[in-house]
């Protein structure tokens, strides 16, 4: 097989998955396209550096994350202050349980929220949290893989994922309340 054929079979098949993450990170279709193209062209140039048998998908995501961090992320990066002190770990679960068991509130909640609302809630997460949430929830990478891809300690991955989860649950709850899908339970 030629270099191009191997690349097509092993790397290019991940274009969808790269594009999905690129879209959540750049928040627009054009930048996502550019980011994926840049990633794959770079991967092709360095294809001889890729160790055969190792995880190609994780390697591609590492390249893409680096390009994203260097070229695409918000230019002025004020320190990201996220106050989660008032959100309990079981915030959403608690809210939904408080609605009473009769009508299966979780099912009701999950059925009401649209795809676009979930995508928007993900995009509204602060960048640092968004990256680990997307890599874990959408792409199914392990903590160790995410640590390698994003250049983080495994403990940082875990804490960001934990906080990202809470932020996402809080955002979706607020959204459901705002749209009247659910009447907020009295605390």
């Amino acid at each position, binding site marked *: 097989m030629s270099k191009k054929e191997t690349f097509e079979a092993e790397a290019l098949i991940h*274009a969808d998955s790269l594009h*999905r993450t690129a879209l959540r990170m750049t928040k627009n279709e054009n930048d996502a396209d550019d980011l994926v193209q840049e990633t794959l062209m770079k991967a092709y140039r360095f294809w001889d550096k890729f160790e055969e048998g190792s995880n190609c998908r994780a390697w591609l995501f590492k390249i893409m994350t680096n390009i994203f961090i260097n070229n695409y992320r918000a230019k002025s990066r004020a320190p990201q202050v996220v106050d989660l002190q008032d959100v309990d770990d079981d915030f959403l679960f608690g809210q939904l349980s408080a609605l009473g068991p009769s009508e299966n509130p979780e099912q009701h909640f999950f059925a009401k*929220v649209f795809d676009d609302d979930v995508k928007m809630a*993900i995009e509204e997460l602060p960048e640092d949290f968004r990256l680990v949430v997307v890599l874990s929830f959408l792409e199914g990478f392990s903590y160790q893989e995410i640590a390698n891809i994003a250049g983080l300690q495994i403990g940082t991955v875990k804490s960001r994922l934990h906080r990202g*989860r809470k932020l996402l649950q809080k955002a979706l709850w607020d959204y459901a309340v705002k749209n009247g899908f659910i009447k907020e339970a009295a605390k």
Partner: protein
Amino acid sequence: MTCEEALRRLYDVIDKEADEIDVKEVQEHLAHCENCMARYEFEAMFKTFIRDKALSTPKSDQLKNRILTRIEDAERSRGRFFKRPFRYQAVIVAAAAALVLCIVAAFSVAGYYRQRAFIQPFEDSHMAGLQTYQTQSTPVRAGNPCAPEVLTFIEGYLPAGVQDSIPGYAMIGSCLDVIQDVKFAHLSYVAGESMVSLFVGSPDGVNLPDFERVEVGGQECYRYVCKNCQLMYWMIGNTLIVAVSEDKSLPLPEIMPAVSAI
């Protein structure tokens, strides 16, 4: 296992990161504890829910094809010379050799190389700046003030002052460059679609070639047009100023007031 212990392992288990023993113990606890079970089920459901909702429909055939085309283009342009049949290569090499011989014969070798040696680094630096400018993803704002360290260099070390813009020309950036082992302030101006780089520094140690001499407003300067650019240099006191532009039709002397004696 207590409820507290079971919940501490919640996300590790959901994310399939917990070790086998932990998973087993958690399962045993969940079998007896409805509350924890409900929470575990909820978090697992939440994860699946997010994944299902955010998995967009693939659209990548188009994207893949575009990348394949780019790869083919890159391969083709790289392999172009070497993939020709051998006799073509020989012809090209012979022609190049003949051309070099002609150039060598036509010019005084020493004079030509001294001119090139002077032009090349300024031209390179200008072209690098031009390329950066043209490939910027966000447009560079014209009318930028000169960077403080560049201004300090020019004003402190050499008796010259700088204008951020003059009619028709606006500064887009500035930096300090080392050219022929001499430190220069590099000022970039845009004029319409074209760019001009001004290099301001000491002429000590720079080999100044004899270009065509022109007089602009009583100021003596030297101008040269090569294959890629036009270049002009002049002196203010003991300060050397070199102007380079890729646009050979730009009236280069217009840029002269941008740097003046103080």
